[in-house]
């Protein structure tokens, strides 16, 4: 159920997002999702990639400080109210969300939400008990 997410510290300057993306491309790593949390000075670049180990190795070899974190992916039906249903179920669990981001799956009628919980294992148990469907990393990364 756990998805490995790659995070990078970057300075908020022109070219600082492109550089790691290019390194991943050169290493043949596919970027499935990308999110940037930033302040005026710096940011954290979050990636979900086809091969997180290769991505981590590649980026570290180029001097980046990389962190691998477990996140959870939830599928939401791409229809009005789909997101509200999932968030409603989450509300009931009392889980502490560190952050989240969303992207839509171009191949189907589904949107994917990525959640970073404070306690991933507790989140898996609560979400499954609440009937929320969690994606496996295989499902998320399928071509």
């Amino acid at each position, binding site marked *: 159920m756990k998805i490995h997410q790659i*995070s990078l*510290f970057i*300075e908020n300057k022109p070219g600082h997002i492109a550089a790691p993306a290019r390194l991943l491309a050169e290493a043949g790593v596919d970027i499935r999702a990308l999110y940037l949390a*930033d302040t005026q*000075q*710096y940011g954290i670049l979050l990636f979900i990639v086809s091969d997180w180990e290769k991505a981590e190795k590649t980026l570290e070899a180029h001097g980046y*400080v990389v962190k691998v974190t477990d996140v959870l992916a939830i599928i939401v039906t791409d229809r009005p109210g789909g997101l509200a249903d999932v968030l409603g179920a989450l509300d009931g669990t009392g889980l502490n969300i560190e952050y989240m981001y969303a992207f839509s799956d171009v191949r189907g009628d589904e949107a994917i939400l990525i959640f970073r919980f404070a306690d991933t294992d507790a989140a898996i148990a609560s979400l499954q008990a609440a009937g929320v469907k969690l994606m496996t990393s295989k499902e998320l990364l399928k071509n």
Partner: protein
Amino acid sequence: MNSTMESESNVATIHPASEPDYLPVAELRKLQLQRLQAVVTRAWQHVKLFRSRMDERGLSPEDVRSLDDIQKLPFTKKVDLRDTYPFGLIASPMEDVVRLHVSSGTTGKPIVVAYTKQDLDVWTSVAMRCLAGCGLHRGDIIQIAYGYGLFTGGLGAHYGAEALGATVVPASAGKADRQIMLMKDFGVTAMCCTPSYFLHLIECAESMGLDMKDLPIRAGIFGAEPWTDSMRKHIEKKSGIEAFDIYGLSEIIGPGVGCECRQHDGLHIFEDHFYPEVIDPETGETQPDGSEGELVLTTLNKQAMPMIRYRTRDITRILPGVCACGRTLRRIDRIGRRSDDMIIVRGINIFPSQVETALLAVEGTLPHYQIVLTREHGLDKMEVRVEVTAQMFTDKIGALQSLHDKLQGALDRVLGIRVRISLVEANTIERSEGKAKRVIDRRSL
């Protein structure tokens, strides 16, 4: 409309405060020896650290029979003030201490300096002699734009100017617009501040549509940071004033250890109170007059905190020959550099090791960091660039922000001035031979 220095005859007349500046050399040396013997005895009797160092060398105060015997005495270093913080070097009963000032040490710990009533009187008298030597007197209106408070700059200049009989405007540092308004409205004739701050005031005046040359100000007494002759020329040309270099350090007394006279040919050291030597900073050997080295000062009659052979870390030389002004006081060259890594930001002493202490306190490990100094509008800006290490890094932006805030808090506390903190990517601070260059100084003097 700058008024010329009163009348030329006044320049030739010795201000009463300046009389000790002209003591016959033989008399001055005799006075220095008497005072040296007394201060060594005092420190030996009351300061444990000094006594133990004398004991180690098999020395007692009776071994000081000539001024040259000072070379036998142990040095005092800044670290000694830190290690004995707060009152370990005080040679007076605490009830006789009437003032404490604080300056920065080489690590997070500050250093404290103490004064008895008599010490304050000496300080006031030397500060007054500085100003008198610059041609100032009763009738002048002197604005003090050094910081008032724990820093010795403001109060030191203040009491000297007041004792001179001048009208004192205790503006303290900052608020340039108000400084200029005061200068203009009060007809201020002299300013005491850092040279970089005065440059800023010149620019501010310009932006307010004022030409400093049209104001009555005719002299600036600038110190607390190194500056060059080209900066002096620039200031004098832009503002029409005469710029003087003043020297001092809290450990010795504060501003007023030495000052230029109107010859602008080195800074006279008030030798009846502060005995100067220049040593080779590596070997500790005393250098002959004229040779460059580290300035070492001994306070000849300080009560609360006698400093015996205090290593200033300032590199200079004692100028040979006598000054055209007729003072018998020896002169040192203007200070251009230091023998340690201390940097001076807005008049405040800062050591890179203080930054390390603060970073260590927050993270427990020492990331690569770099101090970048710039000067904007005449004011020094200090940026501390900190590389984000794997240990510090987290995927949560809020956690990084709180790290940033913690670093800010720790550095502000340790340094006592506001710095800008930049978190930068790992391995982006240039390293030479594997070691990061700690200080990049982009300020042009």
